[in-house]
């Protein structure tokens, strides 16, 4: 199947992009104007809460790892989740460690964790040494994390962000020390290993939904709701299109219009014929 050089190849593309852009922008605007947008509580959050509960029972520390995530959208969202976890454990004075591989993420994390203790009303519990920059080299970072997980026999291990092959080493070590492990990542290639070695895994878009749910940030919420509308549109098109294809045949101009590059011309031709003939 071909590709698009310009929107003119099939104006349906411009229509779809316009629809999604409007759905996102209108919802962001609604959220900013103070409308309460709804996002469901995903099961991953229950898993997080359960893991927090277990670690407070054991009294051993909790680790949070943003992996090699560079500073960007995912890092900000991972820190939102870490901040939430820190606020929960602050109430029980459970110690925590946040281990980073990126200098910028490290600086922002320090601030976020200090904030979390303040917001939980326990600024006295904040220990600047609990947020650490280990190394920016992949395997040096991984072995640093593995060493710490083993030495401190952590009770729960949270991994959120973007991960590469080093994820295996974290998950394996966490498993050996018997920690409850929750992972959340948009790196699809690492998800299988997390599913195999962790207690619960938050997959792909769920990661963004989790941080939007926690932070209630209008831009994230609005965007999430807008994206949902787009997914519903895609789903309906697939369902409707499959039925139409079955009835009209898969080569019908209407079916070609719905996304095929160059599908606009045959469709207009067909319309002209219909109008001229009818």
């Amino acid at each position, binding site marked *: 199947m071909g590709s698009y050089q310009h929107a003119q190849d099939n104006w349906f*593309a411009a229509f779809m992009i316009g629809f999604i852009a409007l759905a996102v922008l209108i919802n962001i605007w609604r959220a900013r104007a103070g409308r309460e947008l709804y996002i469901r509580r995903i099961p991953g959050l229950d898993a997080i809460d359960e893991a927090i509960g277990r670690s407070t029972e054991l009294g051993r520390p909790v680790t949070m790892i943003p992996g090699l995530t560079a500073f960007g959208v995912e890092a900000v969202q991972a820190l939102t989740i870490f901040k939430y976890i820190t606020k929960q454990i602050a109430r029980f004075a459970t110690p925590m460690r946040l281990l980073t591989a990126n200098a910028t993420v490290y600086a922002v994390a320090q601030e976020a964790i200090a904030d979390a203790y303040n917001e939980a009303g326990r600024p006295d519990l904040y220990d600047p040494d609990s947020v650490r920059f280990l190394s920016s080299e992949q*395997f040096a970072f991984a072995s640093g994390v593995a060493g710490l997980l083993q030495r401190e026999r952590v009770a729960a291990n949270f991994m959120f962000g973007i991960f590469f092959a080093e994820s295996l080493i974290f998950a394996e070590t966490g498993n050996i020390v018997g920690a409850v492990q929750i992972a959340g990542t948009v790196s699809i290639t690492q998800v299988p290993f997390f599913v195999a070695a962790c207690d619960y895994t938050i997959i792909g878009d769920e990661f963004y939904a989790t941080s939007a749910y926690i932070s209630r940030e209008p831009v994230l919420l609005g965007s999430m709701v807008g994206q*949902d509308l787009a997914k519903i549109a895609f789903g309906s*098109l697939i369902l409707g*299109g*499959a039925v139409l*294809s079955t009835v009209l045949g898969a080569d019908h101009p209407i079916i070609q219009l719905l*996304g*095929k590059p160059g*599908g606009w011309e045959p469709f207009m031709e067909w319309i002209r014929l219909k109008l001229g003939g009818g």
Partner: protein
Amino acid sequence: MDWIQEFLPLSVERINVWIGALCTFAIYSILYRENPFYRFFEHMYIGLAAGYALGPYLVDVIYRYWWEPIRADGIWWLAFVVPFGMYLYFIYNEKYGWVSRLVIGSLIGAYAGLTFQAFSSRYLPQLQGALSKVLWYPPNATGEIYLSTLINNWIFVIILLSVLTYFTFSFEHRGAVKRTALVGRWFLMIGLGTIFGNTVMARMALLIGRVYYLLDSWLMIRVGGG
């Protein structure tokens, strides 16, 4: 004895191969435990990789796309491109760091603008491919349609829709929707399982390539192939 003669690092070529083997063993020594030998070669690796990139950056990019056009074609306005790009390097400076965001902003803007073509070319043909799957023998079919094709089309549409349902967040999942989403997560696991299997194969192949080097180039043992 001939093998020993050839094996030993007595020629330039063999010294090179031995150095290659040394590098391999140095990195593998971390499997035993963290050690200075490994650290030494790790840092050498990072330094070499960074230094190597300079040649292609300077000659394939800066010379080819900047200096040549200014000098040979007299496109004078290109002279402004590198100074503007150099604003990036203020990023570590606290006072002037913000000017780097002008360049980063332009790059981000460019990629955002390019996304519209990517969205159309990459995703819409996939959408069209999914919605043109026929679910029953069509009335005006060209060519024969097998029952197996129809079954696979049904499976395709059902899996696609249930996984999409799993990834919706703006409404409560209840009843049938909840069950569909749950099944969606299970289907997702099939896709992840295939990624798992393929990833294992890839990782093993990389190790096999290394062992092959040691056997074939270093120890000079003819390997595999039936």
